[in-house]
């Protein structure tokens, strides 16, 4: 298969550009989340697409200036080199007669260049060999018919026809170019506009010979060439619009995939966080929704055999930041309290049955006690009028 690059410099530039483009994507993939790599990739692809689109639009607007170039003549001053570009008209008798006539001119070398016109589809599917074989057969038949093997050579190119001509300027260095086409572009033939493109690009005489089966060669007039140029421009604009549409579609699909990926990633993270919270919660000690207790004066026997005031429950287990309801029946005639200064808790328990809210903001184990003067011994001993709040 033919290399798509036309010089080592071009290939080297491509490699450098690929490395420069891939590096940020790889860095984003390694250092950040997966979606960041996609975003970076999308940005790079977008920049490339914009660059290509601008370049194409510039070509369509014909901003490229009409500067023609040509390399120096090769060989002696009397020598002349003619490049004949043909594809579907290669078998035309009139063209072969013209080649034969040129070959008969002393010190004239002729190169028959046959661009193989391989479609992108054929390139993708690898059906290139068939097209090339067909071109080889056509070229061999033409060369056999013309004869003059010493001065007439043939070459097949897989490249775009204009690019093939440009490449030939570097190798064969023609002094004149003949582009042979039909009046209208055939499916497997050269575009009639090719002659105009070669004329606009190279500073050598360019002849456009149009061949129809069985007829003599004709040269299109200026109006016809202008029509070819116009139609080619329109076709290029259509082609560009189609490709732009496809590009926008691909970009939209890529963007939607990225959005879906980001959302999916966020959902996964949320799910994981929720799962972790559930697991954490299940690992904690259980918490009752409502704790019911009483304050009973002289309700509990102390170790010394005397009865002391008591809260019937003195150990409270709560969740940090979550309110816990306490229904307390204070059977005494005076108020008591559950006071834990380190936890920021101070519940005044009035006589009678009331519901209170116990809220501890930070986790920990905190001592609480009653601050109302009652049973002094009981106030200093957990399990009586004192105890602990455990917040997890």
């Amino acid at each position, binding site marked *: 298969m033919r290399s798509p690059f036309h010089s080592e410099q071009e290939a080297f530039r491509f490699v450098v550009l690929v490395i420069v483009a891939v590096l940020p994507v790889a860095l984003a993939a390694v250092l950040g989340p997966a979606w960041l790599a996609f975003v970076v990739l999308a940005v790079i692809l977008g920049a490339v697409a914009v660059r290509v689109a601008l370049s194409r639009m510039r070509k369509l607007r014909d901003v490229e*200036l009409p500067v023609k*170039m040509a390399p120096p003549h090769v060989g002696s001053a009397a020598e002349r080199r003619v490049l004949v570009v043909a594809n579907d008209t290669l078998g035309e008798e009139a063209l072969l007669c013209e080649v034969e006539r040129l070959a008969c001119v002393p010190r004239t070398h002729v190169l028959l260049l046959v661009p193989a016109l391989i479609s992108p589809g054929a390139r993708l599917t690898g059906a290139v060999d068939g097209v090339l074989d067909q071109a080889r057969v056509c070229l061999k038949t033409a060369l056999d018919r013309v004869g003059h093997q010493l001065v007439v050579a043939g070459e097949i190119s897989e490249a775009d026809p204009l690019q093939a001509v440009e490449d030939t300027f*570097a190798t064969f260095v023609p002094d004149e170019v003949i582009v042979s086409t039909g009046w209208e572009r055939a499916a497997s033939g050269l575009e009639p506009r090719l002659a105009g493109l070669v004329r606009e690009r190279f*500073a050598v005489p360019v002849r456009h010979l149009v061949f129809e089966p069985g007829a003599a060669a004709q040269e299109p007039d200026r109006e016809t060439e202008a029509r070819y140029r116009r139609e080619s421009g329109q076709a290029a604009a259509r082609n560009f619009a189609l490709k732009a549409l496809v590009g926008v579609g691909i970009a939209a699909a890529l963007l939607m995939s990225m959005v879906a990926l980001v959302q999916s990633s966020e959902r996964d993270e949320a799910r994981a966080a929720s799962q972790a919270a559930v697991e954490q919660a299940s690992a904690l000690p259980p918490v009752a929704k409502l704790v019911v207790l009483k304050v009973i004066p002289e309700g509990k026997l102390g170790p010394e055999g005397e009865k002391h005031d008591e809260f019937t429950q003195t150990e409270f287990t709560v969740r940090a930041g979550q309110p816990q309801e306490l229904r307390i029946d204070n059977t005494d005639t005076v108020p008591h309290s559950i006071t834990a200064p380190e936890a920021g808790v101070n519940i005044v328990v009035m006589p009678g049955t009331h519901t209170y809210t116990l809220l501890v903001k930070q986790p920990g184990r905190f001592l609480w006690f009653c601050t109302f003067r009652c049973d002094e011994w009981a106030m200093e001993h957990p399990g009586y009028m004192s105890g602990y709040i455990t917040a997890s």
Partner: protein
Amino acid sequence: MFSRESAAQAQRVGLNPQPWRWSHPRVLVEHPDEAAGLAIASGLRFAGYAVAVCPGPAGHGRCPLTGPAGCAPAHDADLVVSSLGYEHEAAREVLRELRTRYPDTPLVVEAPSDADAGLRELLGGCHQLPAPATPEQIVAAVQGLSGQAAEEGTGGA
């Protein structure tokens, strides 16, 4: 009159249109007539020069040489042949820019013998050929100037 700073500045700006693809002695031919430009190019090619033919301001309205972009063929040319006809200001502007940006590039100018004072001042120091000049005359002038430039280069070295 023609500063080297402006020439250096031209190196920093972007260049249009396509650059030269050949490294032989390179001659830029500026001629508004396509056939005449090709005839000169043919003569120069057979004399061993790579050529670029530009129609000048007539071909594309505004020459990039007179704008900030710059002109790649002019930038890298070893010699310039200018046959733009200098009755229009646009052509004179191109000539002025060539002289300002590339003061060291030899310039062959095909100019009318009855040039006005402004044009004569602009052409000072150029190799002038009376218009109309034949391709042979232009090729001879180019060969003479490049030979001279080569000798100066050798002498300098």
